[in-house]
């Protein structure tokens, strides 16, 4: 079973996304801050996909992506940004940092699952 790692400071977002992905047969792990997420990844978690929010306090989503890309074995891991931010400049910044895709909240469950299946073969 493929594992998706969700990172967001909103409890409702984490619950909502977990409900959608679990029904699709995916295993879900969660973190409520960039720092906690980075610690979890350093601790050995090897997800098939990371979905992260952008604005999360001290370590935002772009900082998290930059840090994750430096970890061994995470250079090609798909990382999606799921955020309310809509500016093109931020989108370009995330792409430059190493993001795989950009999703604007709120995202419809069917659309989310379609994107997940595109980035995770066999999901």
């Amino acid at each position: 079973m493929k594992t998706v790692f969700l990172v967001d400071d909103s409890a409702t977002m984490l619950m909502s996304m977990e409900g959608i992905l679990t029904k699709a047969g995916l295993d879900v792990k969660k973190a409520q801050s960039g720092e906690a997420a980075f610690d979890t990844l350093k601790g050995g978690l090897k997800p098939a996909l990371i979905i992260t929010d952008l604005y999360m306090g001290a370590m935002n989503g772009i900082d998290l992506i930059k840090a994750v890309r430096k970890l061994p074995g995470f250079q090609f891991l798909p990382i999606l940004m799921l955020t309310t931010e809509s500016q093109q400049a931020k989108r370009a910044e995330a792409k430059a940092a190493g993001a795989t895709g950009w999703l604007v909240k709120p995202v419809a469950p069917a659309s989310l699952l379609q994107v997940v299946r595109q980035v995770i073969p066999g999901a």
Partner: protein
Amino acid sequence: MASHVGLSLTRPYSIRRILLTGMVVGLIPAGVAAPLWDTFIALAVGPLGMAPVVATGMALIVVVTAGFACLGLYGAVSMGWANRRAAKGSLANKGPQPGAAEFPTTRVPNLVREILSETVRNFSIIFSKTWQVADQLQKYHSFTEVMRGQMDGIADETEQAAVDILSRLQAVDQSITDMLAFLEQSGTSTRVVTIIDRTESQMAENRRLIGEFLEQGQKDEDDSRQHMTGIKHRIQCLNSVVQTIRDLAHQTNMLAFNATIEAEHAGQYGKGFAIVASEVKALARQSDKAAIDIYKGIEQLQATIDTGLTAMVTERIERQRLGLESIAQTVSELTDNLEKIISHQRDVLAKVQVESEQIATPIMELIGSVQFQDITRQQLQHVAAALQTLDEHTALVNEAMRNFSRDLSIGSIDEKIALIFDSYVMAQQRNRHRAVGGDGRDSEEDRGQAIELF
């Protein structure tokens, strides 16, 4: 009016003193009014907006300037008139006039003092009003604190409500999943299939046995009929034997009759023969009688077989046949009912699966729609931050109003609004901000796809 302001109308005034008077009358109040005007701008622009403030200020400037200009003009005209009067008086009187020795400079300071005192009084009024505004602005902090607290409460309550909704939706979804799993297991489990197969086998075996019973019954009926026919045949054979016996008895009787006649012809020598003949005749009669009895008995037996036994056997066989047919009918109906039940169960399972799939989609949509709470929370946070900015700006203005001597950098409220705009993250926030400001266009920078893979 001239005496009221201390002007002498008989002494000539020099141009220099006229100009000096005009300067004192016009410039000094203006110099005092300028900082007052700056302070008023700093206090009032924020709460009231620029337009009414500018209008009010302009009106005040016009009124004050006009007022001082009138005073200055009056003073200059009066001095000029006094010059003409003095000139006329010097030509006529050739000498100094009584009271004309008063130097006009004592009148000019009085005028200035009057004007300055009036100005100070006005300044006091403005200062008092300013202090009142400062007091009100100081209360802004409490107001914004209340608003920020309310918004924090709203964010917390909506988050809790969203979590509750999600929990209930997940419980409903789990119940549906469990029900489907149970139904699927019920319809396809090995145990159920085994029971159904065994029941159908038993039904088939019952039908086979019933068929065999019916066949055996028919066979028994045929055998019985054959036996009855055989019995009847034997009876008929017995009848013929009895008839033969009767014939023999008749012939024996005739022989005995003839023997008696011959015995009579033989006379004495025939007496013994006559006795034998008589005995033979008697024996013949007994034989005939016995044959008749046997015949009657055979007839009774035949009647019994024809009416009683045959009917009884036939009736029993018919009852068995009817009973077996009834059993076969019942078994057939049971089989049909069992097949209907199985078919109905499969239909119910299929229907429940279809309906569950249809319910699953709306449930999934509801789970996804709870994301609105996060968006609302972020928007409330931005509003709270804007109130904080306004609160800080108001505190600076308040401090500036209370401490005129301090050089405080308050900054423009427009700059603060621009910073708030820069802090927005959502397109609808930026569009709404522009719409309030009169620009209803959507931003080019926000026209990206909602979902994009790089």
